[in-house]
């Protein structure tokens, strides 16, 4: 069976991620319900507004099934708001905001500033130099001992991995560069092309 990457499509930049994955021959499903989640082998959580996604994760009944899948080793990649959702601690978030505690980092929401401070910059990553697009971006303020830093902006970690879970504070889907999507797909057991 061909493997398939789900892209969480509750709110945010899911369409751009689907295009990036399609361009490297990966089958994608937009995930809005638990039934759709059941059909995917990996999950990408896009940027968007983390507080909006948190609410929709609850109302759609997706929070607990996703948490269970991650605990069972499903490869998962969160970008920007998606990173906030995967983190073990959210700083400056809403008090009722839950996260999956899937990667041991503390992240501060919008720590790089408002939209007028949003920027693009080259960063050094495991896959080589990468052009990072940072939009109202969160900052990784603490990295746990089990977490590997895969990319830095200057000295600062912006791309991290723990087991099968990856997180980025920037937007690889906006750079027309699929190397990080390819790296993520390689975490799937049967790294499958359609």
């Amino acid at each position: 069976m061909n493997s398939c990457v789900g892209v969480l499509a509750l709110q945010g930049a899911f369409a751009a991620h689907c295009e990036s994955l399609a361009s490297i021959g990966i089958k994608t499903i937009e995930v809005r319900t638990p039934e759709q989640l059941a059909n995917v082998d990996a999950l990408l959580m896009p940027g968007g507004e983390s507080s909006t996604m948190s609410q929709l994760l609850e109302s759609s009944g997706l929070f607990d099934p996703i948490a269970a899948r991650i605990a069972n080793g499903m490869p998962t990649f969160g970008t920007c708001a998606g990173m906030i959702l995967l983190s073990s601690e959210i700083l400056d978030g809403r008090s009722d905001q839950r996260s999956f505690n899937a990667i041991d980092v503390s992240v501060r929401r919008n720590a790089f500033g408002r939209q007028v401070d949003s920027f693009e910059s080259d960063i050094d990553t495991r896959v080589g130099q990468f052009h990072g697009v940072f939009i109202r971006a969160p900052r990784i303020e603490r990295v746990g001992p089990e977490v590997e830093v895969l990319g830095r902006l200057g000295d600062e970690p912006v791309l991290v991995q723990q087991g099968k879970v990856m997180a980025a504070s920037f937007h690889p889907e906006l750079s027309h560069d699929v190397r990080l999507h390819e790296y993520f797909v390689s975490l799937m057991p049967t790294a499958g092309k359609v």
Partner: protein
Amino acid sequence: MSSTNSSSVGTLRVKRGLAEMLKGGVIMDVVTPEQARVAEDAGACAVMALERVPADIRRDGGVARMSDPEMIEAIKASVRIPVMAKARIGHFVEAQILESLGVDFVDESEVLTPADEKHHIDKFAFTVPFVCGATNLGEALRRVSEGACMIRSKGEAGTGNIVEAVRHLRSIFGDIRKITQADASELFDWAKNLQAPLPLVQEIAETGKFPVPIFCAGGIATPADAALAMQLGAEAVFVGSGIFKSDDPAPRAKAIVEATTHFRDPQILAKVSRGLGAPMTGIGMDEINEAQKFASRGW
């Protein structure tokens, strides 16, 4: 903020990027910090800070201008989600002020009284991204050629009537579909008829899609309205008067958020549409004359 030598702000990619982040979401008009918190609690992906919702602007008449910076700052301080604010068409100084306040998006809006009868704002001159309204594809492309990073339908704001937004979305997406079928020589004719730059028309023909995200605004009052806009091709929705002019704003706001996400799922739409109380009353298009229509503002 941290910056490295190669870092740059305010690029087209960064500006269009925020529009990308707002997809699938609901942007709600709010006039107080309390309403902004209700909107954020309900799952809004952004708020539009303004002094009066369009229904009240329509009722009051007179000249409608940019909101008081003090109220915009109060709303900014009350939520974590992006805050947008409106400048008058062509009023680049209002836009400069909004940018200096650090709003996340400027709406060059026909809901306010136009300041220039011929020129829109040169939006490339700004670090902050702009959204502009459009009734058809030519107008939408002219706004992109001026630097707009997001287009929304105009609809007829403050009426609670979706019919105009449907007309605008059908016109925009219908013409996009036709252009993707046109041959190279027909594209010249399309550009001429749309009064739009040829390279942007050619880009649509090549990519099959509009250069920036297209959202729906104007007349959304119910979860079903939001889902209709999404099924017609809009990538997110603005709700102006529809929430805080209804009987019970908080549950309606939440229901519209869920309907925008699950826009193709009638069972979920039925579930979230239940027991919301009365929507805003609304106005039929035959009850307002041409001079009262906001949508005809913009050139």
